[in-house]
């Protein structure tokens, strides 16, 4: 199978993301909130804080703490998942913190904590990336000082071909080398804050995948920026 005539199951171009949209200001109680949707994957995020860290011994006098929790709703997938934290969700929560922390100016909030709650309402692959996109917007919406934005996308290799924003159907691809899933998050300035991989790939092709992710992250960035601007306009009109 050659790269040229590779057909994606849903007919997308290799570098074409699923239809995606973002909305800021979806949870009135939260200090900041956002939704990010890519194809059938929907993530929402809410920020509470900065607020005082409890218990006291968890406080960091040098800088504030970012605390993310990623959670999949039990009915977000075909086979119901048991509610509550799992090893997978614990890891994704941490990965999300690591993806976002480099752009946050947490030194302005010693002894405080910023809570980011991410919920996956509907899952069709790429949920951690959708969660990070929503969380980054929610943090900006909450007014947490940030040096840059973070955008996230999953690049994949299906047999020999690099494609962007895998759907669940593509994640389960079984021909040739099978699927390689490569979720990547980047700042707008192009630094990599989150990088994972499962599958099989040579480093040279992996560098191509990073380039593809970079281009997609630029597209996502524009949508995130617009959603944040729109939320301000809406508040002014209201």
């Amino acid at each position, binding site marked *: 199978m050659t790269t040229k005539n590779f057909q994606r199951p849903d007919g997308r171009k290799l570098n074409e993301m699923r239809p995606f949209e973002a909305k800021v200001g979806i949870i009135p109680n939260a200090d900041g909130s956002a939704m990010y949707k890519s194809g059938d994957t929907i993530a929402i995020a809410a920020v509470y804080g900065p607020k005082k*860290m409890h218990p006291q*011994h*968890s*406080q*960091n006098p040098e800088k504030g*703490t*970012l*605390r993310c929790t990623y959670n999949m709703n039990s009915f977000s997938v075909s*086979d119901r998942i048991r509610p509550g934290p799992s*090893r*997978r969700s*614990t*890891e994704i929560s*941490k*990965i999300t*913190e*690591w993806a976002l*922390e*480099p752009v946050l100016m947490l030194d302005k909030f010693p002894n405080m904590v910023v809570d980011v709650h991410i919920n996956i309402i509907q899952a069709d692959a790429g949920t951690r990336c959708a969660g990070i996109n929503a969380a980054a917007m929610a943090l900006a919406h909450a007014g947490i000082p940030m040096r840059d934005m973070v955008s996230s996308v999953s690049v994949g290799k299906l047999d020999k071909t690099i494609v962007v924003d895998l759907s669940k159907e593509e994640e389960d691809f079984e021909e040739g080398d099978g699927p390689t899933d*490569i979720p990547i998050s980047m*700042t707008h300035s*192009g*630094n*990599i*804050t*989150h*990088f*994972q*991989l*499962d*599958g*099989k*790939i*040579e*480093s040279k092709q*992996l*560098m191509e995948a*990073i*380039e593809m992710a*970079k281009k997609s992250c630029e597209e996502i960035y524009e949508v995130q920026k617009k959603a944040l601007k729109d939320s301000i306009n809406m508040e002014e009109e209201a």
Partner: protein
Amino acid sequence: MSGEEVEITPDVTAERIRKYLEQEKRFDGRKTDEFRELIIEKNISKKAEGSVRVKIGKTEVLVGIKMGIAEPYPDSPDKGNLMVTAEFLPLSSSRIELGPPKFNSIEVGRIVDRGIRESKFIELEKLCIKKGKKVWTVFIDIYTINDDGNILDAAGIGAVAALKLAKIPKYDEENEKILYDEHQGNMPLRKINPFTITVHKIGQHLILDPTREEEDVSETRITVGSSEGIIYSLQKGNSGYFSVEEIQKSFDIVEKAWKELFKKVEGQLK
């Protein structure tokens, strides 16, 4: 980060580690891309199907393989199961407290699991006893004995080594009993060596195999599970970031380190 980890490397030491690296130097005289001495001790438990003690400098972990019979997962009815867990024992460092598993042990378990699983190192399809009903489960359990940094790589190397030594027990199907003292052959493995190798970033410098102190100073890291230049799993850890150039450089460092580790591991498993 969430107040779980206690920083005990003093600032002056951290400062000096960074200063040394400016001249490409480390406290123990190693090059930036050099591992400490690797020692693998074989078959440290008679009860395990395969086991090793891995020492990297003063860091020490035990890895044991056990096998059991279970139902297959619905999405792989004709394949054996794989389960990897890691435990940071309180005896291995003054920093580790008793209690439920903390994040770092979950992460080590998951990273080692993915390196083995994604590379298809174990031929799980050969561990099916009765499709949809009964398969072997391979348990890889990792325990820290002394944590002087880079537990991650020690655990990954240990898992590969222990699997290579593992023997499958006999199974008495009539009585549904595993005969642990009798063997029916070696663990079915592909001819690869999916070691996990972690590159740490300190300032502008990329280093391998950090000591505890160096690990404390590390801003971010990338763990690559690979064999002969093919990457099977990868994870960036900790806050901080890598530029695209640093990622490229990390892959080169990993590829070179893998070759050296491969020779050392092969030599010691003979």
